[in-house]
């Protein structure tokens, strides 16, 4: 007996609730954009400059005491957050202290870090500092720029590749799905105020890669079916393709999410934000390849004799059939 998450021979009409699903996607995207502008992202030091000090102490973290200890140093905006992880024992209490970029200096001076560390040691003598990271405003500006370039570059390259391998309608559909995924991921980061740093950009690109993979599989089947069923209406054909590949889509998302879930729970707090982004992206990406990409293709329509030159058989039997 085999485990079947998706029953054999499904015949789901993915377009039946098209208005609802497509509408939901648009609403979610608008909400994400609004959240992005209203709440902003909780940028890490990679993008805004400043210093992050990770502290580890035997007694519980007292955020107020930490804050009080650092306040006399007059370092401007200081954010102290406690870090939780199931792997931490009772004698391992971790916090993250973020200090804003200091006026007029590129990276924070050694003296400043020393004074902060001294002040915190006054609160808790057992405190240690497993990591200290400092990024100057000059670099952080460039990092933002290269991050935006990376995401746009990836989208363009994929657009081009899909256009090359499929029809432009598919490329537009795929890119719409990707923009959807990236927007929704940024939206959830704004909503939950999870730290947004360089690693999250890597996560965004991974989501782009994963989602496109998912979309391409459905498109590949659609391309094949377009050759096989020359007269089937596009809507039915896209539905058929999605149903045929549904089992695979769910299987792959399932295994990927399973692996990511292990990492999310057990992988430690350092990469939790990163893993969360990918985890979320896989869910959103799976949804978008079923409900967003195809809808766009259906809206745009496809010229049906597009593969005539590529397929030697197409020129004979069905040469004049056009949808």
């Amino acid at each position, binding site marked *: 007996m085999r*485990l079947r998450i998706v029953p054999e021979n499904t015949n789901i009409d993915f377009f039946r609730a098209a208005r609802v699903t497509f509408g939901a996607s648009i609403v979610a995207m608008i909400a994400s954009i609004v959240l992005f502008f209203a709440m902003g992202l909780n940028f890490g030091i990679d993008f805004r400059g400043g210093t992050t000090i990770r502290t580890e102490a035997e007694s519980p973290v007292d955020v107020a005491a930490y804050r009080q200890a650092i306040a006399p140093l007059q370092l401007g905006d200081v954010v102290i957050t406690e870090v939780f992880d199931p792997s931490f024992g009772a004698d391992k209490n971790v916090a993250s202290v973020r200090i804003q970029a200091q006026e007029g200096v*590129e990276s924070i001076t050694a003296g400043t870090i020393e004074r902060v560390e001294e002040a915190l040691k006054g609160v808790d003598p057992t405190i240690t500092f497993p*990591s200290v990271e400092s990024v*100057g405003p000059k670099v952080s500006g460039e990092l933002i720029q290269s*991050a935006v370039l990376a995401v746009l570059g*990836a989208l363009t390259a994929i657009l081009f590749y899909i256009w090359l391998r499929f029809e432009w309608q598919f490329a537009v559909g795929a890119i719409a799905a990707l923009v959807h995924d990236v927007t929704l991921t940024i939206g959830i980061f704004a909503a939950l105020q999870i730290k947004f740093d360089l690693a999250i950009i890597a996560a965004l690109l991974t989501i782009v890669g994963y989602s496109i993979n998912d979309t391409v599989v459905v498109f590949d089947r659609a391309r094949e079916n377009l050759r096989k069923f020359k007269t089937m209406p596009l809507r039915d054909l896209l539905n058929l393709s999605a149903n045929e590949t549904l089992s695979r889509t769910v299987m792959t998302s399932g295994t990927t999410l*399973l692996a990511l879930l*292990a990492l999310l729970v057990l992988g430690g707090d350092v990469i939790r934000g990163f893993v969360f982004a990918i985890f979320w992206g896989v869910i959103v990406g799976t949804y978008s390849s079923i409900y967003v990409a195809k809808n766009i293709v259906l809206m745009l329509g496809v010229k049906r004799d597009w593969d005539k030159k590529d397929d030697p058989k197409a020129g004979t039997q069905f040469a004049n059939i056009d949808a």
Partner: protein
Amino acid sequence: MMHIPTWRRVLIWLVCLGGLFFAAPNLFYDRVETANDARAVIETGQTNPELEADAGLWPEWMPSGLVNLGLDLRGGAHLLAEVQVEEVYAARMEAFWPEVRDALAARRDTVGFVTREEGGDPSELRVRISEAAEAATALEIVRGLATPVASLTGGGANDIDVRAEGAEIVVTLSEAERAATDDRTIRQALEIVRRRIDEVGTREPTIQRQGADRILIEVPGVGSAEEVKEIIGTTAQLTFQPVVSRTGDANESPGPNNEILPSLDEQGVFYILERNPVVTGEDLVDAQPAFDQNGRPAVNFRFNPTGARAFGDYTAENIGSPFAIVLDEEVISAPVIQSHIPGGSGIITGNFTVEESTQLAVLLRAGALPAELTFLEERTIGPELGADSIAAGKVAALVGAIGVVVFMILSYGLFGVFATVALSFNMVLIFAVLSILGATLTLPGIAGIVLTVGMAVDANVLVYERIREELKTARGPARAIHLGYEKALSAILDGNVTTLITALILFLVGSGPVRGFAVTLGLGILTSVFTAIFVTRLLIVMWFERRRPKTIEV
């Protein structure tokens, strides 16, 4: 149809075995690392039984390449420094001034008195002549001092631009010369940073040029970025300057072309020195810790021929007058020249401890940084945090893999087992390639591998789902398997090429940990396509040939 030629079978197995062979050292990471370190020491010529024993920990005939652990896993310091190239322009102008002065002084009857305008932009030299009407003549004279730029790209351009502003002659470095100077400065800084860090003897530091004027420094295993900064940031700028006078007042006006510098060990003592050094540390070829005749720690040094000649000439002409040994804007000592020193070697004495004299010798030997470094980015990661991350990554990867395996076997039965075998080989191959390339594994890199575990089965899933579909049309299992692989291929390729594109872009644009992620993700895609298309297929075909089943269940 289901036939796979023998040579291809052999090749596939060879790749898998090769993967095992090259990935193996990573299973014994500490042991191989100790052996590698010991061998590296033995190679330099020294040896002792302990080293030999360490080297013997790992057999010589086995590959000894290991996956490099990134800073976030091993702990260490990461610094991004910007070289202040403009400082060199100022230094060049400073050095150019005597030449300009002498050239104009030779024509004093025409251009009049020559004075230097100070306090302006340090990257330009402003010279005022008293006969403003003769500015054109002065311009000609100064222009005559220009030399062609010594670089491949600077073709024909002069090293300086000279213009007249009323009675002032303004000299700046030309565009071409600046470019050439920048390049030289960065190279020199890079070399000096490398030598200084090597002197301290840390394991496999990364020192790379990044962009036009930046240097990326990654040193595993050090306690903090501060330590690294101390090693490289100490500008051991050594000069020998004539002493004008000694004073106790720091605010005393030193007079034109002079400067006032504090003494290193005498509190409240200042020296007024001529600003132009007789010899600089650049002419130094060697410096060694030593002891002076009184048995106090000192540093022996030796000049190159140019430095030796300048030093010899100066000491010959100035017997009886003091000169200052200046290190980083502080006067170490100001001995009186006792006699002509012709050989170009000498000794620096001061109130050093043995440690300080050793350190000073190292700094002098490594040379001075041509310009100051500004640190734009500093990261210190403690080794415990890295170890925690590795441990967490291992557990997560293992749990994730087991979950995926169970899921696959439940879904596809025997075919799921085949996929599992392929998945294992996939992991092995990733580590083998990482080891061969000496690539760096970072924390996001581990995430990349875990993600690969999830996605690697995708190709198998695509094929298996396809086989299931083909089985429905009932053309026999052999044909279904064959068609399954054939028809799933285009989806596998298109899907993976797009992911590969993103991995490539991540690699090009990203840095540090992100790049590590791109490497494992990209490699994971390549190896998973190989294992899914070739390894599982071979396994299935071999099983099929043995059993010849009438029906199969996927």
